[in-house]
C-alpha cells in the first residue's frame, strides 16, 4: 500500500448512508408500489361496462358475397333437367363442374376453395326415389376429383376413380333409398379434398311426398386456414355468422323442415341446438327410423338427418352448434318468427 491517505471515515459513513437510504427506499417501495402483485381486477365491473351485451360481438349486417352464397344454398334445390324415359321413369340430368374458386367464408376472409359449381357447400341435388339420375361431371379444377354419392348404387358409380383435370365422367344410377344423402369428393388425400369444399347435400324424396313445409338446407362445415389440422371457422352453408346477422324469417306455426348434415373435417362431431323450442329429428331423413323429440342433436362426420319444427311464439330463436367453441367461431344463427 503505497498510498498513505485513505478514504476518510466520514466518507465511508456518507457512503453507508447512501446504502442505508437505498435499503430504506426499497422497503417503502414494496408498500407504495402501485404495481399489482396479486390477482385482482377479474370482478372489476369497469371492464364489463364495455360493449359486451350478449352476442353484440361479431355483428355485421353487410350483405357480402359470402353471405349471399350461404343464403342461396339455404333454399335453393337443384332438381336437374327433367325428362321422361320411354318406360315412364323420370330422368334427371345434372351438370356438376369442379372449379377452383376463392370463397369468402367470413367477412373479409378469402379461402382458396375447391368447389362443385362454385359454392361451398356444393349445390343441393334433389330427386324422388326411383328416378334415374345422370350427373355429368366435368373437372375444371387443378387436381383430380370425383363425386362419391351416399345411397345404394352399383360400385362402379361410387366415385372412387379420379377424374383428372380437363376430363369428364357421367355417374348414372337409380335414386334409392329415400332420405337425406350427402356427396363428396373421394380422391386421396381425402381430408384435404373434402375440407377444401367438395361436398354437399343430396335429397331423395320419398315417393309419397312429405307434408308441405318451409324447407331449409344446412350443411355444417369448418375451415382450416393455416393447415394445422384445426379449423379456424365453423359455419353452416359456408359463411360464418350468416344467419345471425340476417335471421331466417319464418311464419308462426309454420312447419319448418331442415335438411341438416355434418361435413366438418378435423373434428369428430358437430351439433345443432335450438333455443326455446323442441324439434323432431329423423336420422338419415327416414321416417321409419326411430326419431327423437329434443332440442339438441349431434352428428358424426358424414351423418345427416331431417329436423321438423313449428314455432308457437313470435320472436327471435337462436340456433347454434352446442360446442360453444364452434358457435363462437361462426356456427350460430337466428330464426325470426313473425
Amino acid at each position, binding site marked *: 500500500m503505497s*498510498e498513505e491517505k485513505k478514504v476518510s471515515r466520514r*466518507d465511508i459513513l456518507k457512503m453507508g448512508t447512501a446504502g442505508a437510504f*437505498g435499503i430504506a427506499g426499497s422497503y417503502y417501495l414494496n408498500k407504495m408500489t*402501485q404495481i399489482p402483485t396479486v390477482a385482482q381486477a377479474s370482478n372489476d365491473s369497469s371492464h364489463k361496462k364495455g360493449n359486451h351485451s350478449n352476442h353484440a360481438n361479431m355483428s355485421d349486417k353487410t350483405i357480402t358475397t359470402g353471405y349471399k352464397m350461404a343464403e342461396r344454398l339455404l333454399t335453393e334445390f337443384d332438381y336437374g333437367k327433367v325428362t321422361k324415359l320411354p318406360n315412364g321413369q323420370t330422368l334427371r340430368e345434372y351438370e356438376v363442374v369442379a372449379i377452383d374458386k376463392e370463397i369468402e367464408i367470413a367477412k373479409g376472409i378469402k379461402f382458396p376453395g375447391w368447389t362443385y359449381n362454385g359454392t361451398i357447400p356444393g349445390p343441393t341435388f334433389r330427386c324422388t326415389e326411383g328416378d334415374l339420375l345422370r350427373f355429368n361431371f366435368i373437372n375444371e379444377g387443378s387436381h383430380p376429383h370425383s363425386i362419391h354419392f351416399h345411397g345404394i348404387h352399383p360400385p362402379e358409380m361410387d366415385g372412387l376413380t379420379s377424374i383428372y383435370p380437363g376430363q369428364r365422367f357421367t355417374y348414372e344410377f337409380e335414386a334409392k333409398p329415400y332420405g337425406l344423402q350427402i356427396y363428396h369428393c373421394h380422391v386421396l388425400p381425402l381430408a384435404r379434398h373434402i375440407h377444401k369444399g367438395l361436398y354437399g347435400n343430396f335429397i331423395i324424396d320419398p315417393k309419397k311426398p312429405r307434408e308441405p313445409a318451409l324447407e331449409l338446407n344446412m350443411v355444417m362445415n369448418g375451415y382450416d386456414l393455416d393447415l394445422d389440422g384445426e379449423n379456424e371457422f365453423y359455419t353452416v352453408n359456408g359463411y360464418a355468422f350468416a344467419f345471425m346477422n340476417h335471421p331466417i324469417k319464418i311464419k308462426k306455426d309454420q312447419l319448418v323442415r331442415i335438411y341438416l348434415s355434418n361435413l366438418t373435417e378435423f373434428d369428430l362431431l358437430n351439433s345443432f341446438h335450438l333455443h326455446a323450442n323442441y324439434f323432431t329429428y329423423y336420422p338419415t331423413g327416414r321416417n321409419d327410423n326411430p326419431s327423437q323429440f329434443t332440442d339438441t342433436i349431434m352428428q358424426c362426420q358424414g351423418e345427416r338427418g331431417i329436423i321438423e319444427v313449428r314455432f308457437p311464439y313470435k320472436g327471435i330463436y337462436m340456433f347454434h352448434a352446442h360446442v360453444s367453441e364452434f358457435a363462437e367461431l361462426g356456427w350460430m344463427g337466428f330464426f325470426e318468427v313473425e
Partner: protein
Amino acid sequence: MKGKWLITVLIPLVLLIGVLGWVLKNGAGVEKDPAAPIEVLNIERIKVTKIGFELFVSNTGPKPLTISQVMVNDSVWNFNVAPQAKLERFDEGKVTISYPWVEGDPHTIKLITENGIITEGEVAAATLTPETTWSNFLNYGLIGFYVGIVPITLGLLWYPFMKRFSRKSINGILALTVGLLLFLFVGTLADGFEIGAEAPSVFQGNMVVIIAASLTFLLLIGFDQYQQRKQEKKGYSPFGLALLMATGIGLHNFGEGLAIGSSFALGEAALGTFLIIGFTLHNITEGIGIAAPLLKTTPRFRDFLLLGVIAGAPAIVGTWVGGFIFSPIWGALFLGIGAGAILQVIYVITKMLIEDHRKHNEESVSWLNLSGFAIGLLIMYFTAFFVKF
C-alpha cells in the same frame, strides 16, 4: 487525363444500373407469382386496458395487407383498426378489441388477414398494463434505483476492506472482475439475441445485436487510442478505468431494467418482483468490480457517487423504457451496445493486468489470478440463479 479516370469509374456503374433495371423489369426469370400470399403482420406490443386489448401492429411484409377478422381465445370478436384495416408496407396500426379479459388468465389473440394468414399474439397473464402516469413513472424509477444504484453502492462499500490488499491481490481482484464481466458479456449478448429474435424479421434483430456490439467495442477502443495519443499518456488512470467499467456495466444494467419493466408491462408481476431481488443481489458484485481499479488511488466520496450513478442509473431508464415504450428492436440495439462496451472493458483490464505482470517479471496467469477469474465467473453463475427460470 482526369476525364478518362472519371469514365473508368462510370462505365461499370452505368452497366450495373442497366443490369439491375433489366432484372427489375423482367424478373429473375424464375417464377413471378409466389405460391402463397406472403403477408407479414407484426404484433409489436399488446396493451391490456380496462376495456380490453390494444395491439400495436405493423406490416413488414412486401405487400399491403388487410386485417379482416380477430379471434380472442377461440372466439370471433369485434374489433377496430386505426387508422384503417388496410396496412401498406411498413404502415403501423392499432387494433382495439373490447373484451372482458380475466385477471391472471392467458389470452390468445389471432389476427386474420384477408388471405387467411393468421398472426397470433399472446397475453401470458392478463393484468392492466401500467399507464404512463406520474406515479407509475415514479414507482418504476424507484425499482430501477433499487436494482441499479443501491446494490452497486453497497458493493462499493467494500472498498475500505479491499484497500488493505497487496498489489498481487489487487491484480487477483481485477482478474475476478474480468470473470464477472465475461459472464455479463455472454449474458448480455444472449439477452440481446433473445429480444432481437422477437423483433420483426426485416429488422434482423440478431444482426443488430452483433453490429451494435462490434461497432461499440471498436469505437471505444479507437476513441481510447485517440485520447492516449492526444494526451501522450500511457494507459488509463485508475479512475478512468473505473469510469469505463461503470459505463459498460451501466449499459448492461439498462438491459436488466428493461427486463424488469417489460415483465411488469406484460403482466408478469411475480416474475418482475423476483427479478428485482435477483438483480439486486447480482449487482452487488458489480460494485466490487468497479471499486477494484481504484485500490491504488485515493478516490473522493463524490467519485464513488458518480460511479454508482453511472453504473446504476441506466437501470432506472431501462425500467421506464421496458415498462412504457418497450419494443424488441430497441432492446436488441441497447443490449448490443452494452455487450460491446463490456467487451471493451474486459480487453482493457486484461491488457493492463498482463502489462503489470510483465513489468514485474511475473506470469500473468498466476494461480491467484486464475482463482480470481474463476471465482468471478462462479459468483455470477450462482447469483444468476435468482433470475433464471
